[in-house]
């Protein structure tokens, strides 16, 4: 089990991670979701004993990264962002290097390396220098590197970034496979990644946790907000005349003009979760003879949550579940 306790990391000038706390249960597959610069990499670098936190601690299986880093490292496999491998080495020699570095002795060393080659599909490229490999293969070598010593915990930083769709699918298959047996934490700035691979999501933004739960739970937490998209033929109609009238409609909490697309002037409405205002809007438009051409109810999705929570303004923070989680 992993317990991240009031973690803070300050670089000169910037606070990259600001008082983050969460727990990860053994066997969980956790997705760390957040935009670039949110503090994902920094948190992972602290968990992997790359650098110490400014304050706070990470406890992994009862050991602190501050006091027991050598022991923690042994049971942990890590793949940093952009897979910084020794690219001058052929694949097999690289895996031998890592296995030896991990303290694996023959004959277990050879056995584990063969298993990794098998699982990660590296059989065809064993004697190729890593620098000659495609990004997809390089990533597989990176995964083999992280798993060769059969660690309990695997930490993968943006494991599919920079890959093409086929490679992404392959790597996700591998991740799901590993996630069945191990505790796995991966970071990503793209949403489909977590829905494809994780049981649980922590959304982080500007160094803080803004949401934590299973993908389904997070969608369920979209209380108080539901979006309606309406469009008017833009030609002779000035949308701004409609905005105050719609705003006055009971149940509408905000109206936002989102521009003109293909001759359709779009408005985005935020309404209470329970009220379906579509019929009211139709009647309103008909009564005023507005050229209504589009009316669409958007169910709250994880995408919305992610977008809203990571904008960082106060109204969004209020609906965020961050404050619901303590210790």
């Amino acid at each position, binding site marked *: 089990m992993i317990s991240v306790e009031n973690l803070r990391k300050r670089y000169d000038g910037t606070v990259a991670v600001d008082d983050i706390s969460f727990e990860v249960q053994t066997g969980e597959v956790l997705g760390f979701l957040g935009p670039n610069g949110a503090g994902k990499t920094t948190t992972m670098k602290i968990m992997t004993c*790359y*650098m110490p936190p400014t304050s706070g601690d990470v406890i992994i299986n009862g050991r602190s990264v501050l006091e027991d880093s050598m022991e923690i490292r042994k049971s942990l496999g890590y793949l940093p962002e952009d897979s910084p491998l*020794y690219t001058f080495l052929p694949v097999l020699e690289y895996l031998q*290097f890592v296995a030896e570095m991990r*303290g694996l002795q023959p004959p277990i060393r050879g056995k*584990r390396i063969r298993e990794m080659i098998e699982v990660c599909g590296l059989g065809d490229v064993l004697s190729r220098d890593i620098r000659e490999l495609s990004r997809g293969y390089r990533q597989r070598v990176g995964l083999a590197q992280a798993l060769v010593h*059969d660690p*309990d915990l695997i930490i993968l930083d943006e494991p599919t970034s920079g890959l093409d769709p086929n490679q992404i699918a392959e790597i996700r298959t591998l991740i799901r496979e590993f996630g069945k047996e191990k505790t796995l934490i991966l970071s990503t700035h793209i949403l489909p990644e977590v829905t494809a691979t994780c049981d649980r999501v922590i959304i982080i933004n500007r160094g803080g946790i803004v949401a934590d739960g299973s993908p389904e739970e997070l969608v369920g937490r979209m209380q108080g907000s539901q979006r309606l998209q309406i469009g008017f033929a833009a030609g002779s109609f000035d949308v701004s005349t409609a905005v105050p009238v719609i705003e006055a409609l009971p149940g509408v909490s905000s109206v936002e003009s989102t521009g003109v697309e293909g001759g359709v002037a779009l408005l985005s409405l935020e309404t209470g979760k329970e009220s379906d205002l579509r019929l009211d809007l139709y009647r309103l438009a008909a009564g005023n003879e507005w050229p209504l051409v589009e009316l669409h109810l958007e169910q709250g999705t994880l995408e919305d949550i992610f977008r809203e929570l990571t904008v960082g303004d106060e109204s969004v923070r209020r609906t965020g579940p961050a404050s619901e989680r303590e210790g």
Partner: protein
Amino acid sequence: MSTLNLTAIANSNITALYKKELKAYFNSPIAYVVMSVFLLMAGWFFANDLFLGGKASLRTFFEVGRLIFVFFIPAITMRLLAEERQSGSLQLLVTYPISDMEIVIAKWLAGVTLLAATLLFTSIYWFTIFLLGNPDEGAVIGGYLGLMLMGSAGCALGLFASSLSRNQIVAFVFAFAVLFTLFILDSVIVFLPAGIAGVLEYLSLGYHLDNLSRGVLDSRDLLYFLSLTVLGLAFAADRLADRKE
């Protein structure tokens, strides 16, 4: 959960890193360039002595060897840590079960090995002298020992230089500046008062190398090179532990 016994053999991590560094040297032109240039230059001075000067001795070779080392040591140590920082591979390396000091030692050993291998090739010269007459064996052994000790101290200082930033040029320049300063110290002391001159003389490479090349093994000379080595390694490990990126 893990069925593997990870506690066996101590320091297989140092061996692993050491082998990786040697492979890195021989995977790039650097090892070949350093070795062949050293052999060519040393050979030229040796042949010069032999055929033009008419004396079969390694003295000039050892003296020139020092100066070549002042250039070559920074060249072979500059990449050791800076490159890992630059490429990002340091992010992985330091999360393996290996301490910062073990990393530094493995890399230092690789640098020293490269220098030792280079010196080993010069045994052709030594052999020639042996065939031609009566070599002063003490001087030969002392000369080689001096270069090796200088290599040891130089690699440690070069490693420290390489730990300072991700820039290999900075590492080269810094290491070169330090070694060159230590190298010329004993030639500037003639301008200085005796008290300071004594201190600077003790700090200079030349003073101790001269002692050794006379075939005299004195603990003060050993202590000098040993201190520089330990200091360089300790500073390098200290810089490596201070990770800001």
